[in-house]
């Protein structure tokens, strides 16, 4: 099959789009799983993380639903300095600490992202 110049450009564009979208979809699924399993669980255990989550929800009324929390985490993610590069949740947490996006919950100095993760965990329990 011969490709004229226009057809070549169309196919190429589709290929590039697929290359971007497919990993992004895969990344989204992986990321959703990451969001739902805060690393704080390894450090503090489920009970403490749940307690932290409840305290966060209580002190942040505009983030008291799972949707609101996911949206807030996602919004924060999109404020990355390299927006096209998917970040792991660990990167996002680390960036929070670097940028001073921290919050005190039950005395714990936490990244805002992981505090929201704890809240999600509390709401899902």
């Amino acid at each position, binding site marked *: 099959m011969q490709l004229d110049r226009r057809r070549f450009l169309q196919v190429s564009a589709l290929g590039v789009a697929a290359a971007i979208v497919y990993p992004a979809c895969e990344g989204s699924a992986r990321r959703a799983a990451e969001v739902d399993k805060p690393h704080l669980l390894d450090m503090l255990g489920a009970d*403490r993380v749940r307690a932290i989550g409840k305290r966060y929800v209580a002190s942040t009324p505009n983030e008291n639903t799972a949707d609101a929390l996911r949206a807030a985490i996602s919004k924060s993610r999109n404020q990355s300095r390299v927006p096209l590069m998917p970040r792991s949740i660990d990167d996002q947490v680390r960036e929070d600490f*670097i940028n001073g996006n921290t919050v*005190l919950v039950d005395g714990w*100095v936490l990244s805002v992202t992981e505090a929201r993760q704890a809240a999600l965990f509390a709401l899902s329990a």
Partner: protein
Amino acid sequence: MHTDARSLDNGTTLQGDLCIVGAGAAGITIARELANTPLKVLLLEGGGFEFDPKMQELYRGENVGLPYFPLQAAALHYFGGTTNHWAGWCSTYEPIDFEKRDWVPYSGWPIRREDLGPYYARAQSILDLGPYKYDPADWKNGDDERVPMLGDSKAVYTKMWQFSPPTRFGTRFRDEIVNAPNIHLYTNANVVEVIANDALTSVQSVRIRGFDGKEIRARARRFVLACHSIQNARLLLASNHQAREGLANENDLVGRFFMEHLEMPAGELVLADPAKTSTKIYALDFAKRTPRGELAISPAAAREHRVLNGTCSVEPGNLGDEVKSTFQFLDTTLMNAQRAWENGGRKGPPPLASAEQAPAPRAEGLPRFYHLVSRQEQSPNPDSRITLSTEKDALGMPRAKLNWQMTELDKRSMRTFYQVLGAEMGRTGTGRIQIHEWLLSDDKSWPSFISGGWHHMGTVRMASDPRQGVVDANCRVHSLNNLYIGGCAVYPTAGAVNPTLTLVAISLRLAEHLKAAN
């Protein structure tokens, strides 16, 4: 040579070139430096060679401020002074401790850190410490796991301590002092008044009084008050027959700026992965006295956040443990047990070590949780002060009245340190920090377990300007040309670390000045 002052006749006058009042770490250090010189040194010690409850009772005082340890148990009143029960913790002050910090009112020494460098080096051997090295890299001891946490941090670093055996000046240097031909040690010689000339420009003598009412005078060309900080201030304030407000107190500074180190539990650390983060260098091994580190706020972070200098120890435990402050942990019973253990030939484990190394049982495996116990300088505060009580002691001297007070900067600084530490732990993935609830409340209130470390400092502070301090950079009283102050009383700021190493260094420096002045 040694004389028990109780054997002297009433009305005796002692005569020397230099009279040192107080034979603790400062007085003994200065006397040793002047041993075997042409100077005739009178060394006056209020107590004897052993602990005597009757003598110790002279240190009882009133406390009208924040909760504080009973004053009669906070410093020891016999030859060797408080080194007779100190724990031996030693570290150096940092350059920032000597600087004028515009966010710390009344901060700034008239000397710099480097001025003390050579004296610190010499103080190391006096206190039976290791080499003059305080970099964590110098104390790996061949163990690659003895490395600091947060090694790349610009906000937090690891401050090292060395441990004196601890050197008990009273026993360690007794023979040397007693055998020095030019040092005349008088025990049971309690000075109750400093007497100046009529013009109040120099000191002529000190008045010594016994329980039997017998009085002795000591005259000299120069005098050093080398008592502990409360007693130095008390003695100047009580010398009020010639000057109503006390000697050297023209500017109402004597007794003010009493400072302590805030030593209290304030946070928790949970490690992200105990297998990846070694805490060995922070371990307290009281029996072996292995140098150890504490996490400290860096000078850069202290400047950025405009806070005081502070550190915290890292002690394995469990979340929810009851962690005691220094005043809670080291009660009179434990101190008496430690003293009995030492006097009894040090048989078995030392009571202090047993108490320090008896944390609550922990979970299996490497510890994940650690208690963080603060050690922070107190902001110089003129309202934190020693005055005279209306009650008098058995020698007729007004007792000391302590009004220990804090400022909002003290509490904000401690909280900020843990916030900075928390951010660094998170940034590096090392772990997370929990700040205790009491530290998150308002900046004015303090919990009942507020604690110092029996580190009395600052009551006769050092400054170039007589309106800002009682003594000059050479520890000489501005208004009395032959009176010097030894010990921690001259510290304008407290630094974050235990004060004894610096005390000995400053005493060496003062002794050198006195040598040159004669």
